[in-house]
């Protein structure tokens, strides 16, 4: 298995188990692999749009979609595990990726009213809500944090 795949799998394994995204050092120690090789793999995964680094610190991850490296208004509970998602799409992406039931705790984008979504094996339990995509698909990566 090439180093990029090892690093990708390690990142997702660690965040899926703990809810916290790892740094380059965490991944290098766990594989184990040289830190420079892991840092280079982080850069290539970023080019493939599988990672978004923390601004100003490429050793840390802001996003490993659907997971967020920082707290957001989209919280996801899967059993005893707690995650943050980057957006409402990613909030559903976490149970989709983990193939597990989940509770998504979010808020109405306008009023701030809490909205809880229950995700079962069959999908989300219907509740009154809509999702608004403000940015067209061709421009999502102009500023993916904003998107």
């Amino acid at each position, binding site marked *: *298995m090439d180093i990029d*795949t090892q690093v*990708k*799998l390690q990142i*997702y*394994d660690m965040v*899926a188990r703990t809810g916290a995204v790892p740094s380059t050092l965490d991944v290098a120690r766990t594989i184990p692999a040289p830190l420079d090789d892991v840092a280079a793999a982080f850069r290539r995964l970023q080019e*493939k*749009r*599988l990672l978004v680094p923390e601004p100003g610190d490429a050793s840390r991850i802001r996003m490993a*979609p*659907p997971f967020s490296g920082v707290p957001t208004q989209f919280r996801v509970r899967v059993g005893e595990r707690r995650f943050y998602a980057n*957006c*409402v*799409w*990613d909030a*559903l*992406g*976490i*149970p*989709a*990726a*983990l*193939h597990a039931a989940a509770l998504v705790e*979010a*808020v*109405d*984008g*306008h*009023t701030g*009213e809490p*909205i809880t*979504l229950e*995700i079962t094996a069959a*999908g*989300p339990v*219907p*509740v*009154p*809500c*809509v*999702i*608004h*995509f*403000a*940015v*067209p*698909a*061709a*421009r*999502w990566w*102009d500023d993916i944090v904003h*998107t």
Partner: protein
Amino acid sequence: MLLFRSEENVTQWCRARGLPMRPLVSLAQLWQLAVAWYGNRLTVESRRPQPDEMASIFASVGLTGAFWDPNADGWRRTT
């Protein structure tokens, strides 16, 4: 992308920011997108969908048109 309790709340959110109203997506559609996008994300073969695959995924849940086209030149920055 944000979650709203109602279309009226989206309208008010857009109006408050001077933003145009964009297409709305249902919870069922978003779940289908999440499964297509992330269902294998933790596996060896996972990768982000490429533009043509993205367009197919959107179309499969009824989302068509330039807004959902990742190659739509009209939406790209000119600078």
